[in-house]
């Protein structure tokens, strides 16, 4: 374990991250397909002229999307952090255990059954995520408790089977639905509803806080299961809780935004380079970092090919791999 910074430094760092997030949010509010002056953005945000074009664009189009990006980004990054510790595997990300594939299958089956002009619904996507999560949990249990090794294998096999099912259902869908589904599979934040924000914000924030409560146990767990048990940690209980919370965060995020790649893998590594391996600081750092990264990526997705838009997952995937390679070379060299 690297030396953890002092409490004061940690607090300063978190404050700096929060300030950066607010600054980036405001930039994201000011940028988009339609050019608005800073004054228009500000008065639109404060709703000085309700119903005006600037107010509709800022408050009803850009703001909900930025809120969603923050929530989804934080959820994926914290989920990745938790899973990397739980599975003791630096390659673990929120999707390694098949939750995103289950969620995608849920959404696509809804499209398939719903037929013409149906929506890929967040609800069936979430049901798909929860079913997958339970199934992998049952497979991953050995002698009454979770085994990270079995869990990982069970998750990977489940994920590949579900991906195969997705390909199968895709062949049954009409072309238009397939093209629509592609956005979903790549990860896309363009479809936001107020209900999603209202439901997701408490759910994701509470799940992150509860996971945070286990951060000390996660630190101990990194020493090895035997050591952790000696130090009085109920390993089985911690592992189950972390698994369920991390999966829940992924399920919540994926059901509204599709499988946005790389973020959940990359941000925990960035966080560890910044603050070390102490989960008491790593988890909040990852939460802010994930929110910042996704808001940045989605702003790019909205503006780079304007007036057309890119799915945000395409942006994170294209940017993610080079950044990851850079980190790898820096840490190993």
């Amino acid at each position, binding site marked *: 374990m690297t030396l953890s910074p002092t409490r004061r430094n940690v607090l300063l760092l978190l404050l700096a991250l929060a300030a950066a997030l607010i600054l980036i949010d405001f930039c994201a509010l000011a940028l988009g397909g*339609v050019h608005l002056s800073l004054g228009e953005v500000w008065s639109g945000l404060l709703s000085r002229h309700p119903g005006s074009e600037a107010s509709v664009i800022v408050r009803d189009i850009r703001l909900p999307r930025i809120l969603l990006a923050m929530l989804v980004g934080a959820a994926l990054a914290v989920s990745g952090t938790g899973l990397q510790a739980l599975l003791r595997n630096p390659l673990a990300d929120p999707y390694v255990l098949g939750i995103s594939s289950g969620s995608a299958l849920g959404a696509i089956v809804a499209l398939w059954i719903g037929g*013409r*002009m149906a*929506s890929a619904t967040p609800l069936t996507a979430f049901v798909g995520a929860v079913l997958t999560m339970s199934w992998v949990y049952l497979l991953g249990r050995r002698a009454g408790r979770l085994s990270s090794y079995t869990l990982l294998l069970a998750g990977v096999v489940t994920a590949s089977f579900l991906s195969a099912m997705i390909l199968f259902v895709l062949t049954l869908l009409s072309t238009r639905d397939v093209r629509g589904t592609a956005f979903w599979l790549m990860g896309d934040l363009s479809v936001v509803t107020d209900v999603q924000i209202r439901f997701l914000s408490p759910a994701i924030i509470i799940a992150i806080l509860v996971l945070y409560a286990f951060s000390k146990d996660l630190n101990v767990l990194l020493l090895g299961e035997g050591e952790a048990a000696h130090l009085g940690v109920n390993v089985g209980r911690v592992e189950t809780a972390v698994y369920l919370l991390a999966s829940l965060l992924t399920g919540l995020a994926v059901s509204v935004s599709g499988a946005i790649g790389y973020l959940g893998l990359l941000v925990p590594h960035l966080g560890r380079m910044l603050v070390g391996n102490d989960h008491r600081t790593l988890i909040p750092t990852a939460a802010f970092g994930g929110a910042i990264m996704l808001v940045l990526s989605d702003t790019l997705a909205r503006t780079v090919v304007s007036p*057309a838009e890119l799915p945000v997952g395409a942006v994170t995937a294209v940017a993610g791999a080079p950044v990851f390679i850079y980190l790898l070379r820096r840490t190993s060299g």
Partner: protein
Amino acid sequence: MRDSSLKNRNGFPVTSGTGSECRQIAERIPLGVLILALLLSASATSARVVTDQTGRRVNLPDHPHRLVSIAPSITETLYELGLGDRLVGDTDYCDYPPQARALPHVGAMLNPNLEKIVALKPDLVLGTDEANRRETADQLERLGIPLYGVTAHTVEGTIQSVEDLGRVLDWEQPTQKLVASLRVRVEGIEKQVQGQSRPKVLFVVWYRPLITAGSQTFISNVIQRAGGVSISDDLNSEWPHMGLEEVLNRAPDVILFPQTDAFAPGIDEFQKLPGWRDLAAVRNHHLYFIAETIMRPSPRLIEALEELANILHPMAKQQGEHP
């Protein structure tokens, strides 16, 4: 498919009276009642709730005059109806007529830029179930912008969708004129191909691998109307993948390609490709390009239909001209 479009036609909801209906009523009822009726209808003129062809409830303004089209076929139809001046925005892919390219664009059909649409201040957005996503309609509804969706899965369905647009846009008489002329042309083709033998047609959407048009697209309907029969008529999907073996087995008389950039290499290519060169249609040089409008449900579809009928039944066309 025809069933649902008929249902939509009949099921078009009761609305506040149009101008001509008001005049008919006026001749029969006393003045006081008329004034009362006018007062009542005046309060309801701003908008009415209708069900569009895709089955969504839409809050439709009575006289939509700032339109955004998010499907190329609709853009074409609006210009054809002489409503180009009501159009304030369209998609990056709206390329016909040329004026459509000069309009402000709102992005692609599947993910149009919502804020661009808001900035254009449309009172109605028009889309199709073929080109657009349900999510887009829901998002626009959230922003208080109505989206009216049409469906067109056959030649007749395309004509009916034009008719429906005319009704929605309060532009019935010019629309009826266009629709009548389209119907006359379709009937002309019907006469031209009547009693002729029906050549078997393979429609090639893509050739590596071979993707053809199944029964769920209107291409097979266009082929049938043009006096042919699609060999992939029994494949119950939109763009099925068909093996060359199966094509050899079904032995098409004519092979059709849409005129797109994808086929830039030219038809000669197929005379060298194994499998393809064994087809009678290739050996007999019965390979044809057809205007890309065969894939777009707009009034120009009828042009493609005529073109195809002339390819499949050239003799009948000549007989028709010199009886």
